[in-house]
C-alpha cells in the first residue's frame, strides 16, 4: 500500500496533495472507513445501564463490610524494638488476665512505634520541567511540589513517610505522569501505569 495513502489516512496530508492515480483509491478508503465506523452498534444496548448500576450498587453495599473484614483479618508484620516487643507482650498478658488495659489496635501500634514517620528525600532529574510534583499513597495521591532551588534540573522534596512499602509517581508540568527511573522496584497499577515503589524501614533506635 502506498506510503502517501497511509499519510493521507493518518491525517498528515490533505487529499488534494495526493497524485491523480491515488485519488480514487483514497475515496474508496474514505468510504470503507465510513462503513467501519457504522459497522456495529453506536450505543450500548437497552438494559445495560440498569445491569451495570445493579452490579455497582451490590459492590457499594458490600464493599464497606468487606473492607472492614479485610482490615481486621489482614496479617500485619510488625517489627518492634525489643523493649517495645516486651511491652506489647505485657499488654497482651494483661488483657488475657482480664485486667483493664488499653491495647491499641493494629493501626495505632504501627503509628506509635514502628510506624513513626521518616523523612524520605525524593529526587527527579527533569531539566526541562517547569514544575515537578510527587503523588503517592503516602500523600493520599494528592500532589506535593518538588523544588529545584539551584536550577541544576534536579528536583527534590523531603516528605514524612511511615514505614512500609509505598507507591508513587512524579507529575511533570501538571500533565505528564512519570515513573521514577531510579526507583527500587515497580508495581503495575492495573490501569496501564507502572508505579514506582519505595520501601521505608522503621527507625532502628531502641526505646
Amino acid at each position, binding site marked *: *500500500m502506498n506510503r502517501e495513502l*497511509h499519510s493521507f*489516512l*493518518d*491525517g498528515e496530508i490533505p487529499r488534494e496533495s495526493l497524485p491523480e492515480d491515488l485519488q*480514487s*483509491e483514497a*475515496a*474508496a*478508503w474514505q*468510504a*470503507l*472507513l465510513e*462503513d*467501519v*465506523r*457504522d*459497522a*456495529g*452498534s*453506536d*450505543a*450500548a*444496548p437497552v438494559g*445495560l*445501564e440498569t*445491569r*451495570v*448500576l445493579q*452490579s*455497582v*450498587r451490590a*459492590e*457499594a453495599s458490600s*464493599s464497606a463490610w468487606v473492607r472492614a473484614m479485610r482490615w481486621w483479618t489482614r496479617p500485619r508484620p510488625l517489627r518492634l524494638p525489643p523493649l517495645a516487643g516486651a511491652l506489647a507482650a505485657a499488654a497482651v498478658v494483661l488483657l488475657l488476665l482480664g485486667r483493664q488495659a488499653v491495647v491499641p489496635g493494629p493501626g495505632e501500634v504501627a503509628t506509635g512505634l514502628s510506624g513513626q514517620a521518616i523523612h524520605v528525600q525524593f529526587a527527579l532529574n527533569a531539566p526541562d520541567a517547569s514544575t515537578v510534583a510527587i*503523588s503517592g499513597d503516602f500523600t493520599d*495521591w494528592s500532589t506535593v511540589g518538588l523544588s529545584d532551588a539551584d536550577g541544576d534540573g534536579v528536583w527534590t522534596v523531603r516528605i514524612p513517610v511511615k514505614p512500609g512499602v509505598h507507591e508513587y*509517581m512524579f507529575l511533570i508540568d501538571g500533565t505528564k*505522569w512519570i515513573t521514577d527511573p531510579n526507583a527500587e522496584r515497580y508495581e503495575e*497499577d*492495573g*490501569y*496501564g*501505569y507502572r508505579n514506582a515503589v519505595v520501601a521505608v524501614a522503621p527507625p532502628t533506635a531502641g526505646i
Partner: protein
Amino acid sequence: MTGLPHEAQRGGPTSGPPDGEIVRRVLSGQPDEYAVLVRRYKDVLYRYAERMMGRPDDAEDIVQQAFVKGFQSLDRCRDPEKVGGWLFRIAVNLCKDNLKGRHRREVSLDAVGTLRAEGGNPEVASERTEIREEIYSALQDLSPEQREAFVLKHVEGWSYEEMSERLDVSVSALKMRVHRAREELQVLLQRYR
C-alpha cells in the same frame, strides 16, 4: 476536559456537573452519583468493546466489569476531570486481557444484526448489511493489537499522540499497527472501487 477526545460528538457529557465534581461526590459518600458517569460513558465503552470483542455479550461483560472496577478504585483515579478516559482505559485493558488466548475469528454475527436500520430500498439495505458483515469479520481477523490501534484511530478518531499517551506505546509502533491493519483490510476495498 474528560480525557476522551471525541466523546462530545459521540454521546459524551454535554450538560450537568463536570466529571471531577461527580467523582468527588462519589468519594465523599454519595455512591449513587456514580450513575451519572455510567450514563455518560456506557456508549463509548460499549462501542469500543463490541468492536474489539466481536460479540455483544462479551462487550456487555467488559462494560460491566469496567464500571465496577472503576467504582472500586475510584480513589485511585489521579485526575478526576479525566475520569472518562480513565474508565475507557480500564475497558481497553479488560478487552486486552480477555482476548489473550482467544482464537481468532470467534465473532458472532449477532453483532451485525444490531446494525442501525437502513431506510429505503430493501436490496440496498441487504447489501449494506452484507458489507458490514464482511467488515466485522475482517476486523476480527486482525491481531488484538492491530484491532485496538485501528479502532481507536478510525472509529474513535484518536490521534496517534493521544493513543500513545493512553496506551503507553510509541507513536511509531502504533502507526505500524494501523498501517498493517490497513494492509490486511485492503481486500475489502474491492467493493468501493
